[in-house]
């Protein structure tokens, strides 16, 4: 079975202390420490526009956060379920287009349109997931690729021109006077205004994914990933957990799609493109998808690379190199490599100290 071997995430207590009352102490403080850390990161992150006044870098951070949500959706599915999807652009693009169509063509309020778009993306995610989660390995990869590209073709079909604008895409225009979360349309394109939204959603999604992974549901999915047959024989329903995981992942991609459309104020068939699909998977992989943080880091690096290398046209070259190097040598991605480096450094330092 396909796996990228992650360190075990089983949420077990260390050596039990033997006294019944003693277990409560360490667990509470550990959980509290974790929660406090998350809140701290969130609050610090919210203040980013204060520290970073350069709109260029702030733009990169914002775009990175949005792509990070997409990458994390893909990474979650790949590492927890062993399902690598080259077609998450389906939900990303579908949500983006739904948002564009409902605001521009139908005049809906942006917030309503955004929620509707996420709903549509998730619903399609459920349908697609139900059909394909049982297909193993390469078959799943090719299926997701085909579905993603089918949606690309739909977005450029002449017959759907009134809806999608085909190759021209849809410039998003809010109905007169509409605002989104208190900001009018021009402000949404401004990175410092958009950042709090992107950051909040990102942190929220990271927390959700982490909690899901650590839950009993998360362990069930991993059991299915390790050996589907054995899990089934153990009495677990192997279909529903995978479907639910897929739906969560599709919802994440849809949210990312809506955020993307909100910021760019423009959707074009590129959101469905093969390049986008491939690059988002690579960003997640290179970042290190065994963790929740890895794909986000991969996404930020990718967006940075896109801005810096875009003019040279060499982005795809370096993305390809990063992919090959990661799979061949850095199997747990950048985060994994950093973690190992850190462990190594600590070991060296400790050994030195005791000498």
């Amino acid at each position, binding site marked *: 079975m396909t796996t990228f071997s992650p360190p075990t995430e089983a949420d077990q207590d260390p050596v039990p202390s033997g006294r019944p009352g003693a277990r409560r102490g360490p667990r509470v403080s550990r959980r509290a420490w974790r929660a406090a850390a998350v809140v701290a990161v969130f609050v610090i992150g919210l203040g980013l526009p204060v520290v970073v006044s350069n709109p260029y870098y702030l733009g990169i951070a914002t775009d990175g956060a949005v792509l990070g949500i997409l990458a994390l959706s893909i990474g979650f599915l790949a590492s927890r379920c062993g399902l690598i999807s080259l077609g998450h652009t389906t939900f990303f693009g579908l949500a983006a287009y739904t948002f564009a169509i409902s605001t521009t063509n139908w005049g809906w309020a942006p917030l309503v349109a955004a929620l509707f778009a996420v709903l549509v993306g998730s619903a399609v995610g459920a349908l697609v997931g139900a059909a394909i989660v049982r297909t193993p390995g390469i078959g799943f990869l*090719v299926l997701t690729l085909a579905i993603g590209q089918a949606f690309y073709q739909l977005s450029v079909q002449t017959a759907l021109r009134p809806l999608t604008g085909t190759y021209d895409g849809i410039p998003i225009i809010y109905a007169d006077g509409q605002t989104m979360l208190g900001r009018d349309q021009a402000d949404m394109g401004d990175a410092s205004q958009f950042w709090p939204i992107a950051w909040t959603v990102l942190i929220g999604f990271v927390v959700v994914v982490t909690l899901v992974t650590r839950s009993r549901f998360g362990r069930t999915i991993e059991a299915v990933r390790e050996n589907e047959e054995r899990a089934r024989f153990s009495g677990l329903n192997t279909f529903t957990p995978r479907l639910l995981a897929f739906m969560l992942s599709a919802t994440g991609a849809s949210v990312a799609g809506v955020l993307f459309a909100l910021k760019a104020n423009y959707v074009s068939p590129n959101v469905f493109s093969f390049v986008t699909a491939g690059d988002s998977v690579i960003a997640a992989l290179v970042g290190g998808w065994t963790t929740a943080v890895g794909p986000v880091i991969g996404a930020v690096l990718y967006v940075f690379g896109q801005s810096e290398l875009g003019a040279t046209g060499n982005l*795809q070259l370096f993305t390809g190199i990063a*992919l090959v190097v990661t799979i061949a040598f850095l199997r747990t991605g950048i985060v994994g490599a950093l973690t190992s480096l850190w462990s190594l450094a600590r070991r060296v330092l400790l050994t030195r100290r005791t000498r």
Partner: protein
Amino acid sequence: MSIANLLNGVAFGALLLILSSGLALIYGLRGVINFAHGALYMLGAYVAYQSVGALGFWGALVVAPLVVAVAGVALELGVFRPLEHRSHVEVGLVTFGLAMIIERVIVLIWGEDTLPVEGPGGLAGTVSVFGSGYPAYRLFIIATAAVMAVGLFVWLQRSRTGLHIRATSQDPEMAEILGVNVSRLSLLVMAVGGALAGVAGALAAPYFSVQPSMGQAILIPVLIVVVVGGVGSVGGAMTAALVLGIGQTLGNVWAPSVTVLLPYVLVIGVLLWRPTGIAGKRVV
């Protein structure tokens, strides 16, 4: 005019047939989908462009497959063999990354422009087919594909090497136990697969013109054809290629919007119904 339309479909299907046979061979033997196959095809086209000036079209048609065969061997030695013990998906992703690298390097060498390649002078005109004129060059592509298909089939069915390839595709471990030199066979298959991609690229150069996006553009149709045809089934891939080429081109006449979705509907349907593909014999 429908004869001309049909021939358009057959011509495209023929090109796809040559390209997908190579991919199917590799997929069958190694169990890995070589996502770099489109890049190999592109390499063949650019090498053909480069050699046409000095060697003429026929010379280019010989040089391109040779160069890409070497590239295939390099792929085998540099990627497939060292990563033999990794999962098929991982190796597939490596080829995906390699495709991006190869395609960009090609553009860095030859530039971003679309490069025109003239077909051979003798095939420049039209041939009268059932009353309407049809470009001779496209007929040539069809003829070449037919010859290749027959040749490949005879080789796989009748020769000893062909027997070994078929055996290894079905069960690599058993084949090795029975004395087949799987490593040498892999080298051969990669070379042949590469050569086929090179021929397809060289043939496509006057047909489609040589441009940076050609590798990516052909990859998905080829993948679909190979997957639908069946894991490692060369015959299946060939049939699927022709069906796709003709079906799409004819469908374009009647219902263009629906036809465009045909290949995707096909591959989704086939994979969900029969994950091993229509003629496949092994689960992935």
